[in-house]
């Protein structure tokens, strides 16, 4: 906020926060914007002589969560945990094996529900790879205009929206509109992608690693742009990232995924300061600390995630968990209902005082020094 005055900028001023009460709103503030119930996606693994199905990768395995109006839900997890698959499932880009998606009270699909086309008018997505997500043969204004055009908007109306949107994302339409993607930088391309996603005037945006491929300084610019747009257009975000710092900065609530399942979900503040799942704890500990005193000597999380075709029995994280006990191999911990904004849940026996786990009721971070001692002895 205290920045040297810039060159005369054409940027719009920070708008006043839009008062809750979008005309498109249906169920009121209390009704979640998006409700996902038991969503599943299995990829078949083929092999053998006749290329028959020999197994499944449970990329998304029974996920239930809600996204509330006006919030930003951050989704974190290692690569391959099913974050991107989840995004594509929500957009209806790949068919789900089962489960339910409810958008603002309306179930998607089914006889009385929203059609995919209607859903997509309200829900849009920004892809990770800004290179591959723009058609190299279309000038960017046409890329932005494409969505409204195929939805039936007139050429004139579209042109106006497009110019306005480019302006909003910080690209002067007269300078950039006619350019091709290869004439733009990574950050500029991602701004175009955001404008393209907003062109249909959606109520919700899924940002799939939308800033991960950018330089840190550009990333910050785009993040600020996203915050600005969210207020201006009264948006709700799902923000998928593997970068916990970025998620902490932008998200109101955080959902942690591991091997296709949700292991922890809760308000950002609570997750970052009182992580209840050992996996979340380990992820947080893996972050680079700026303070030398805080640096961890051993990697909090070692090894690769287990083979997702045959995930471990019971708790899927137990093979890498330092607190694992016999019961973890036999009983899968439940996440429980978490359908309000403030609830903080973890799918771990330790988080459930009545589970019978030796450390039940404790936070996973307590054991950290012991683990370090062990590693010193071992070396």
């Amino acid at each position, binding site marked *: 906020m205290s920045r040297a005055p810039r060159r005369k900028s054409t940027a719009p001023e920070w708008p006043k926060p839009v008062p809750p009460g979008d005309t498109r709103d249906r169920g009121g503030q209390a009704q979640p914007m998006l409700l996902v119930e038991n969503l599943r996606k299995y990829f078949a693994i083929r092999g053998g002589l006749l290329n028959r199905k020999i197994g499944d990768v449970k990329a998304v395995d029974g996920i239930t969560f809600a996204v509330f109006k006006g919030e930003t839900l951050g989704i974190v997890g290692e690569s391959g945990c099913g974050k991107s698959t989840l995004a594509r499932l929500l957009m209806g880009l790949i068919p789900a094996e089962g489960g339910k998606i409810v958008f603002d009270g309306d179930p998607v699909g089914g006889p009385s529900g929203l059609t995919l086309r209607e859903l997509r008018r309200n829900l849009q997505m920004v892809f990770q790879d800004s290179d591959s*997500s723009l058609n190299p043969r279309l000038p960017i204004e046409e890329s932005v205009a494409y969505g409204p055009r195929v939805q039936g908007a007139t050429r004139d109306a579209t042109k106006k929206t497009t110019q306005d949107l480019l302006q909003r994302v910080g690209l002067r339409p007269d*300078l*950039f509109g006619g350019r091709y993607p290869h004439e733009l930088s990574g950050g500029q391309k991602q701004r175009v992608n955001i404008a393209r996603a907003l062109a*249909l005037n959606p109520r919700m945006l899924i940002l799939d690693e939308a800033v991960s491929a950018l330089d840190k300084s550009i990333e910050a610019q785009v993040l600020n742009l996203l915050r600005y747009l969210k207020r201006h257009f009264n948006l709700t975000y799902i923000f998928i990232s593997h970068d916990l710092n970025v998620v902490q900065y932008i998200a109101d609530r955080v959902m942690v995924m591991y091997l296709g399942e949700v292991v922890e979900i809760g308000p950002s503040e609570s997750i970052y300061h009182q992580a209840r799942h050992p996996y979340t704890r380990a992820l947080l500990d893996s972050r680079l600390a700026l303070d030398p005193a805080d640096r961890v000597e051993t990697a909090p999380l070692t090894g690769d995630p287990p083979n997702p075709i045959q995930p471990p029995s019971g708790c899927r994280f137990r093979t890498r968990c330092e607190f694992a006990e016999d019961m973890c191999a036999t009983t899968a911990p439940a996440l429980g209902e978490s359908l309000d904004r403030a609830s903080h849940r973890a799918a771990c026996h330790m988080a459930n005082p009545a589970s019978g786990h030796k450390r039940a009721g404790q936070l996973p971070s307590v054991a950290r020094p012991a683990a370090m001692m062990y590693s010193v002895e071992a070396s």
Partner: protein
Amino acid sequence: MSLATATPDIIPATAAPRRRGYWRALWHKLRYDYVTLFFLTIIVLIFAAAIFAPLVAPFDPNKTSMVYRLKPIGYRHFFLGTDELGRDMLSRLIYGGRMSLMMGFVPVVIATCVGGFFGVVAGFTGGWVNMLIMRIMDVFYAFPSVLLAVAISGTLGGGVGNGLIALTLVFIPPLCRVAEAATTQIRTRDFVEAARASGASNLSIIFFHILRNIVAPVLVYASSLISVSILLASGLSFLGLGVEPPTADWGLMLSTLRQSIYVQPLICAMPGAAIFIASLSFNLVSDGLRQAMDVRA
């Protein structure tokens, strides 16, 4: 993290507007490729000669003469000598260009449309449709191109039409493969997903996103086939398939003059040299195009 900036950062307005469309940029690159330009000029000249053959050719290409048979280069008014029936070689070479260019272009153009269509359908649809189309193409791939062309036109019999059919059939499978590969590659890109996410129909995606992106690689590949087509067509005529006498055609001329290599070796070699120059020019221009379009071979 201290990200305290409030306004979205605006790109400085100093970035110069560079609005250059794809084809304009392509021409810009070609302009300094002198080898390609040189051979492009040759192609243009061959074309011009073929189109304006009646104006350019000094004699009637089919006028025989018992007196002036197999005369050497520069004999009297026969600039490039005469053939075994006393016809003027220069005129016949000019008229022959018509046939060779047509046999070079027409099959490739038709095959590009047909093969491209099936390739896009196969690549876009995927699944068993892809399997079916591509396996059928594979069967045609199991024949070396010369063999297939000869076999088809050999059974159908000679004649320009049968030759064109044979060559077109030969070129459909490779073009289909190239179009299929390009489509499959584009189809998995995020902008197609994004288009689908904004509610676009398959048809709209194909026209707006797929076709625009595969046109360059497919055209580059097709352009490289023109030279092959000229060689194959002349080869067919040489074997007595394809163009039939007395029509002037380079391959046919080479075939009939073959009997006279002991008499006028230079003249006998001339039609082949014409085929060679044409095919070389098309090859090099195609290479230049490929480089300018930055399509990997």
